[in-house]
């Protein structure tokens, strides 16, 4: 028996995790979201913005489903691990930590994106059919899956997901709110540290905390943004994402037991 990763065991864990989502609840939640979306479509279908090619309405609505819905869903993905009674069942199942981690990651990231796209496309067909019936043939321009805005949105979800996923592991309750707060504190501290570091390392360029020295050296950080170092940005970004994922993984290893038992 492979104690780190066994494909057959992982397939069972993934299937169990998917089935644990309870298809009936997912169906009801999807219908509820579709109902809300239909109201927005009906309210806006007459406007030129909604009918224009590459309409932002579909993209904005899809963004809400992906970012907001995905964040809420991801923040609850480890609820059974934190539940005082359910956790025994979760923790004692004979599977590895890596399998649990990868299974929940796949469900809440790529599979959720796939679910959101399929749900939105099915909704779009139905909603535009209703709009055409009720609003003299007018429909909302469809969501363009090849548009740059759409691809950027999916990338943004994968980025955001890393933090929410880590938060779902680390925080036992109100994971989304706590993750948002922790994120705010992290970026505020990061910004402050950067602000202070610049003033310490380039002391001559400033006469006070907020005023630059007109006679001092000109600080030019543009070299960080020229095309020649784009690969470095990508490398640093990838390293940052990997680090976030690793932190989440460490969190799962440390957090899955001990706490609350």
């Amino acid at each position, binding site marked *: *028996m492979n*104690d780190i990763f*066994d494909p057959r065991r992982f397939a069972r864990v993934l299937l169990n995790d998917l089935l644990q989502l309870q298809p009936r609840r997912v169906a009801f939640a999807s219908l509820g979201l579709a109902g809300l979306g239909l109201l927005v479509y009906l309210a806006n279908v007459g406007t030129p913005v909604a009918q224009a090619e590459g309409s932002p309405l579909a993209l904005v609505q899809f963004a809400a489903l992906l970012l907001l819905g995905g964040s809420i869903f991801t923040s609850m993905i480890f609820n059974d691990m934190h539940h*005082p*009674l359910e956790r025994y069942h979760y923790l*004692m*199942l*004979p*599977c590895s930590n890596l399998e649990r981690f990868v299974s929940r990651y796949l469900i809440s990231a790529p599979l959720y994106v796939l679910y959101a796209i399929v749900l939105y496309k099915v909704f779009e067909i139905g909603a535009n059919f209703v709009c055409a019936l009720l609003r003299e043939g007018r429909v909302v321009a469809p969501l363009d899956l090849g548009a740059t805005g759409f691809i950027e949105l999916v990338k943004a979800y994968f980025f955001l997901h890393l933090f929410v996923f880590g938060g779902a592991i680390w925080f036992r309750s109100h994971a989304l709110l706590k993750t948002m707060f922790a994120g705010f504190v992290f970026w505020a501290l990061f910004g402050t540290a950067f602000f202070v570091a610049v003033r310490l390392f380039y002391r001559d360029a400033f006469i006070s905390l907020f005023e630059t020295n007109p006679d001092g050296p000109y600080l030019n950080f543009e070299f960080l943004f020229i095309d020649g170092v784009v690969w470095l940005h990508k490398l640093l970004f990838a390293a940052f994402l990997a680090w976030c994922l690793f932190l989440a993984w460490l969190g799962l290893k440390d957090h899955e037991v*001990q706490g609350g038992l």
Partner: protein
Amino acid sequence: MITTRQLGFSYSRKRKPLFEGLDLSLPAGTICGMLGANGAGKSTLLKIFAGLLFPQTGDCHVLGHRPGAREPSFLADIFLLPEEIHVQPLTAARYTARYGSLYPRFDRDRFFALLDEFELPLDQNADALSMGQKKKFLLAFGIATNTRLLIMDEPTNGLDIPSKSQFRRVLINHFDPARSFIISTHQVHDLESLIDSVLVIADGRILLHAPLDTVAQRLTVEVEHQKPDDALFVEQTLDGYRVLRANESGIDSSVDLSLLFGFVTTHKAEAQALFADPAPFARQALPAKGVSA
């Protein structure tokens, strides 16, 4: 099967350690009853055995594994029935399909036979069952997993009187020497005629760990109308006194777990002296299969 060496554990650095320098060796192929008052550390020790809590000092080995590593090969060889339970909203058939395959030696037929023996409805989701029925459902699943170690924490809590007898009968009938059961409880009468070794914990220490045969050889229980002066421990009952004395007759006595527990926890030094050289653990004789406990 289970060995701990100088095991230490504390829930918080500010609090007194629950266990300090705990040495223990539990052999395989026994049904061990773990007795202790509330807060003695029974559940904590079971969680350490199951890999849910990690010792802070010393080490613990269960079935050749370090439980804290939580390897799937280890988790597939133990089953924990916790005191407070949660079951998935699934019928027995779906439960088997989802979780049975994760245990290499899972016996589906045995699971359904046990559910039948416990008279549990097969078409009902397990979460809709009563607390006692849920316990029986999980116990049936745990037995059917055929894991080498089955750990039960207060398994008889929430069971009615017929269910307690049923519980004892099922455990005896489904025990085999390749497996070991550890049952923790503070309701000592639930373990009578079930266990073959006893472990008494108090204040984070092992006060007694001995086969019941040894207990029967060294202690004797009598009922007397007058309170004696020469007894090791006395418990008053409606019709007199239950008296525990050193067994000097050479004939095995019956074992009264309640008296034994009272004696061991209140007369620690005497108990330790009496069991200072316990007989080596050997495979204990169990009641014949099919016997109603």
